[in-house]
């Protein structure tokens, strides 16, 4: 294992410390609970948005905390959901009296821990609600299973609901909007390599030099299919094919698009993939709204690979998607 770290057990706290030193104008860090909190929290009268999940997906979620997006992010250990205690502390730190809304990715761990946190918060008199994001079309949906994973599409929930909360929408309005975004967002990913969680010290899986995993998650969970690596355009065709044949009718609509790098894939390759994504969408009569998101938005440490996300937009979503915000994941320019 080769990493720029000091000690595997300290990666999360040292990373948060670095984020706080770099972005003190946007966020503050609550070190005892591994929380990233909006610098000016709590914002009185505003619904507060809290997300969180395992670490190792940076800039998700701490990078999305700030005016116009999240009020707090709870950082778990690498690839491990944070705990209800953390979530409760985050809830208390950001509650501005209008309730707290949790953006939860659909993993058993995340869901169970946020549920417990919600129970604890309600016991302390703070109103909470939540959405469980499950945008990953790689996994078949079924009520008899844990359902689909939440992956990169979650960023759109952060952005749109964050802007809506800033705009004064109340808790039930945020919930309705979040469910609507979730119902209209679909993602699918693939990977070329595994990654090494610092504490494990070894790759999560082995993969041959000419193989890829299709339908990859973001924690090194195996995908749904392993096969020989193919040209970028064919990979994109498969990911988009699965997204477009799912139960959201994208045809003729305006969409937000994300080509998300998993950490180890250079921008060159993401743009090569985006080039074909744009061609397929044009052929299908689907219009890309605004600026596409091409870059590393939700990563798996140093894993090579990418995902494609489409969000079918309505007028309200468009306004919130393009509203200004100020978060650490943005660039100084």
């Amino acid at each position, binding site marked *: 294992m080769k990493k720029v770290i000091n000690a595997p057990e300290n990666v999360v706290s040292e990373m948060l410390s670095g984020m706080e030193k770099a972005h003190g104008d946007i966020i503050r860090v609550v070190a005892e609970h591994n929380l990233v909190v909006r610098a000016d929290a709590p914002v009185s009268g505003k619904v507060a948005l809290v997300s969180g999940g*395992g670490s190792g997906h940076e800039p998700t979620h701490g990078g999305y905390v700030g005016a116009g997006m999240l009020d707090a992010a709870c950082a*778990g*250990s*690498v*690839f*491990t*959901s*944070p*705990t*209800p*205690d953390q979530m409760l502390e985050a809830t208390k730190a950001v509650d501005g009296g209008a309730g707290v809304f949790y953006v939860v990715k659909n*993993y*058993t*761990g995340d869901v*169970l*821990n946020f*549920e*417990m946190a919600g129970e604890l918060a309600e016991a302390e008199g703070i109103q909470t609600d939540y959405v469980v994001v499950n945008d*990953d079309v*790689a*996994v*078949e949906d079924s009520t*008899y*299973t*844990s359902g*689909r*994973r939440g992956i990169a599409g979650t960023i759109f929930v952060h952005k749109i609901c964050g802007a809506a909360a800033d705009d004064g929408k109340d808790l039930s309005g945020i919930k309705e909007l979040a469910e609507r975004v979730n119902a209209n967002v679909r993602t699918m990913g693939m990977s070329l390599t595994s990654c090494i*969680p610092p*504490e*494990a010290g070894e790759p*999560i*899986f082995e993969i041959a030099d000419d193989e890829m995993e299709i339908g990859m*998650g973001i*924690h*090194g*969970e*195996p995908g*749904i299919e392993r096969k020989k690596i193919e040209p970028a355009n064919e990979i994109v065709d498969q990911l988009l094919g699965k997204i477009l044949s799912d139960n959201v009718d994208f045809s003729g609509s305006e969409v937000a698009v994300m080509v998300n790098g998993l950490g180890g894939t250079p921008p060159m390759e993401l743009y090569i993939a985006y080039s074909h994504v744009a061609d397929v969408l044009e052929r299908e009569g689907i219009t890309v709204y605004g600026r596409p998101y091409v870059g590393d938005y939700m990563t798996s440490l140093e894993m090579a690979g990418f995902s494609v996300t489409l969000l079918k937009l309505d007028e309200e979503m468009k306004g919130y998607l393009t509203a200004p915000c100020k978060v650490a994941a943005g660039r100084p320019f």
Partner: protein
Amino acid sequence: MSSLEKTLGVIREMARTVEENRKTLTQLDSAIGDGDHGTNLSRGFKAALESLESSSPGTPAEALKAVSMAMIGKVGGASGPLYGTAFLRASSSLGGKEDLSGEDVAAAIVAALEGVKQRGKAELEDKTMVDALEPAAEAARSAAGEGAAAVFRAAAEAARKGADETEPLVARRGRASYLGPRSAGHVDPGAASTALLFEAASRALEEN
């Protein structure tokens, strides 16, 4: 030896066993999950031991409550709230009792099972810890009349068998469910850790 001392002995043996099997559990989780189950439980049991040091519980239920809080507060993931709920329900079922009978122990295991199923909504054959815990609870109930050691012995045997039998199953709950058919052919890490914990408990009581 008091039931409190025995309970503490069981917890310490569980912690030791988790540490010893950390890598194995993590490897099982790498095959069909995200490779952290061993690390997760190890973090939880370390915190549990620390908490027991500093809090000096007065009853078995208090000791189990401390473990539960450590699991909920320090583990995260799926197994944190699930094992946390298991220990919490076991603790509640014991109430203020100081001397535990075989019946008490069996009832605590049954309560743990109910808590896990309620939280996680998994059923038998979903390829989760329930596949070890449910047979363990049944065996515990059957052996309830033979004393605590016999209850854990029976539970451990049943849990191990249940864990082994997860191997061919296709997961329907938890992270492994995302793999669909590819999840078959591997033992479920949570079922494996449940078996290890019962074996640890049984060992701790035999040794006394």
